[in-house]
């Protein structure tokens, strides 16, 4: 089937989509956007988190056909203008990236958290990111990065 959607601000028509394909598969394999990651493909790890009409979702749990006519923003789209977002800068600066496989999902989830709650407490950060598994960092530097991004956004505003 054909789906038509807006991805990172650009209207895309994708042909030949099989009904059983996930949005994650369509992004990765049909639209050249492999930034969203495929670590569990059952909505447990958050590595595939994207915005769907402004709400963060696990793109592995959304059928590609469900995204027809809708707006998707992936990790690639957050810095589409070539400028890193504060959350991306903070993950870099704090050493919150090791293997990095969880990073795209965490970037999107953190971006969403700070949009909703610019100055989250530590328990609020932990609750908001509990759906994003990381196996390398033990989360300490991710906590550092979220706190830093929050401060940086506060300074910028």
């Amino acid at each position, binding site marked *: 089937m054909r789906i038509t959607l807006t991805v990172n601000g650009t209207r895309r028509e994708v042909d030949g989509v*099989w009904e*059983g*394909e996930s949005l994650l598969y369509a992004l*990765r*394999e049909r639209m050249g*956007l*492999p*930034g*969203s*990651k*495929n*670590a*569990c*493909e*059952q909505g*447990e*790890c958050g*590595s595939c988190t994207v915005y769907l009409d402004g709400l963060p979702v696990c793109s592995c749990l959304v059928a590609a056909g469900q995204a027809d006519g809708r707006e998707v923003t*992936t*990790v*690639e789209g*957050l*810095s589409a203008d070539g400028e*890193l977002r504060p959350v*991306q800068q903070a993950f*870099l*600066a*704090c*050493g919150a*990236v*090791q*293997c*990095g*496989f969880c*990073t*795209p999902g965490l*970037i999107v989830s953190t971006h969403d958290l700070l949009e909703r709650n610019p100055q989250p407490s*530590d*328990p609020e*950060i*932990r*609750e908001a*990111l*509990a*759906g*994003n*598994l*990381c*196996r*390398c*960092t*033990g*989360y*300490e*530097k*991710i*906590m*550092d990065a979220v706190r*830093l991004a929050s*401060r940086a956004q506060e300074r910028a505003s």
Partner: protein
Amino acid sequence: MTSAVPNSAGASETTASRGRVGDSPLRPDGLLKVTGAFAYASDLSRDDMLWGATLRSPHPHARIVAIDTAPALAVPGVHAVLTAADVPGENAVGLEHLDQPALAEGVVRYQGEAVALVAAEHPETARRAAARIVVEYEELPAVTDPRRALEPGAALVHPARRDAGGNLVREVRMRRGDPAPTAPVVVALDFEVGMQDQAFLGPESGLAVPGADGGVDLHVATQWLHVDQRQVCHVLGLPPGKVRLHLAGVGGAFGGREDLSMHAHACLLALRTGRPVKMSYSREESFFGHVHRHPAWLRYEFGAERDGTLVYARADILFDGGAYASSTGAVVGNGGSLGLGPYRIPNVHVDARGVYTNNPPCGAMRGFGCVQAAFAHEALMDELADAVGVDPVEIRARNGMREGDTNITGQVIDSAAPVAELIRIVRDMPLPPGSPPEPDLRELPGGVGNTTHGEGVVRGIGYAVTYKNVGFSEGYDDYSTARVRLEVSAGEPVATVHTAAAEVGQGLITVEQQIARTELGVERVVVQQADTTVGSAGSTSASRQTYVTGGAVKAACEAVRDTVLARAAGMLQRAAADLRLDGDKIVDVSGEVLTGVADVLGDEAVEETLEWRHRPTAPLDEETGAGDAHVQFAFSAHRAVVDVDVELGLVKVVALDTAQDVGRAVNPDAVLGQIQGGSAQGMGLALMEEVVVTDGRVRNPSFTDYLIPTILDTPPMRIEVLEYADPHAPYGVRGVGEPPTISSGPAVAAAIRAATGKALRRVPVRPEHITGA
């Protein structure tokens, strides 16, 4: 000194630095990783590529009577279906023993063993076609209890080994001192450790591209390109020149990528179809596609003086190796030679065994044989502390190894062994505050499940120490190769470093750059993609790469520097020993600029390739286990603070604090990252992580049912890093990655015991172990 204090926002924020040894420069792959542009193995694609899928055995042990591939071949979009009959080389792979077929031949020995392969236009087509392959099985009696695997009459997992050990993969015996020691205080216990999974997030993936020469290029996520290459060549029947491996982006490893997964399979399909073939496992397949940490059964006994000083230790350790050997032999070597922990023990009797069963194959995982043992020796050390009335910190300080001591294999610990200092450091760290009158649910056991508001919650504190070997042991020729080139580009000296060492996320590329900057004085360092066009770097495991590949890069840089300075000395009529490289200049010892690097090199590049070895090790004596088997030892201590809902058996780890000697922190931020991540993995094994296997079948192959710690489960960590340089190691480094995974779990288990008064002789600790009688 490096340290981390939790909740001090930005404490570990990287500051601008020159990026030399001892600094914490930003990792060069970080920008790509935060923008989604980094190419992991599962991201690779070619326009004309096919997708591979694997058909796996549903049985733990069965004879393959017949395979009918015709229904799969009939599926539109399918290009090839392969079985063992299609393997052109020898159908045998394995790290220590070539005991595993690339595709099952006549028999399957564990649930999930690869039986057949499909290549198709779409991954779903390939999976569905694989499901249409008809395999007729005749189920065989399965050996699923490793404790019975060595009994007379037990079925043999590998019948050909009937006269070569049967189901015994390896046995290691340690005998030291008095064979029949006695002591006034004796404590003993039995312990059981469940099967842990590495749970790296990036699934096993790779892309095999057939070459015009009849060979193949394999782009793959791995820990050791050359050991993969050797095995793939074996299966394909091709020489190394025709099987070229390239490291693709690796999404974590932790031991789970030491063995082959899809490597040979993708190559077989690519060579058969003449098209690039990509394979990428689902999470479920990943649980069957790599080895796990060995489950273990441990019986320990300590004899001590009335003041708690150890007189003797006995241990019997059994590792379930599963259906194929993988690295079971080396795990048994570690369990036997290191399994009594970092203590001074004059009289020792240890038997460690690894056995074949029809359970999932087990092999390398971070901590490698020491993790299982540490749960037992640390639980028993607490028993001993209780028995003699000494607190858990002092009993460890009293018995802890010191530099110059001899370990149980008779090896002298000839660099720092600060056991007492480490355990006292964690004891003296501030404790987290108690729960406030109206605690945040998210900080209580059960969390937002709203199972308690603090009632029934008891706090406990536990301690543990460990030591772990760094590098490959027991006489293994453990080397790395580095190629370093210095040339002038656009007026600026540029160093290029090429090794086959696998960056798996830990930050090795950054370290290679730091070393080159330090040794060559340059700012710009390019690290080439790891591949097999340069010699082996050995494995990214055993906490060894900064030491061994770092040593190789350092040595190659020194050779380049010597060449450049010798040339400069000739031009300047000065002694080379008086010259230094500093950025784009050559200076004398006072820093005075003598000439430019460009003036010396011109258009020429200076390149050196060399192999580097750490000091040799020796095998363990067959009868006594004696031998200088290990290269280096790394020590760590943990203190865990837990809150336990004793009514529901739920645990919240409140703090997980640690101290570790790293010799020299080449990259202090990366060191902290290793310690934090390693600590969380150890905690996971204590609390939640277990591949549940019943009658040889895995019951929970998913992240829904196999739980790893989330950010809500993981506590803040205070970390203190000691830097007692090892005089035998480059820059004084000591391996970092594994010790935190070993000492954190036992500290968590001890804290739960302290809170509940339960013996807790099995990990992961389940709620019913806490609430049960």
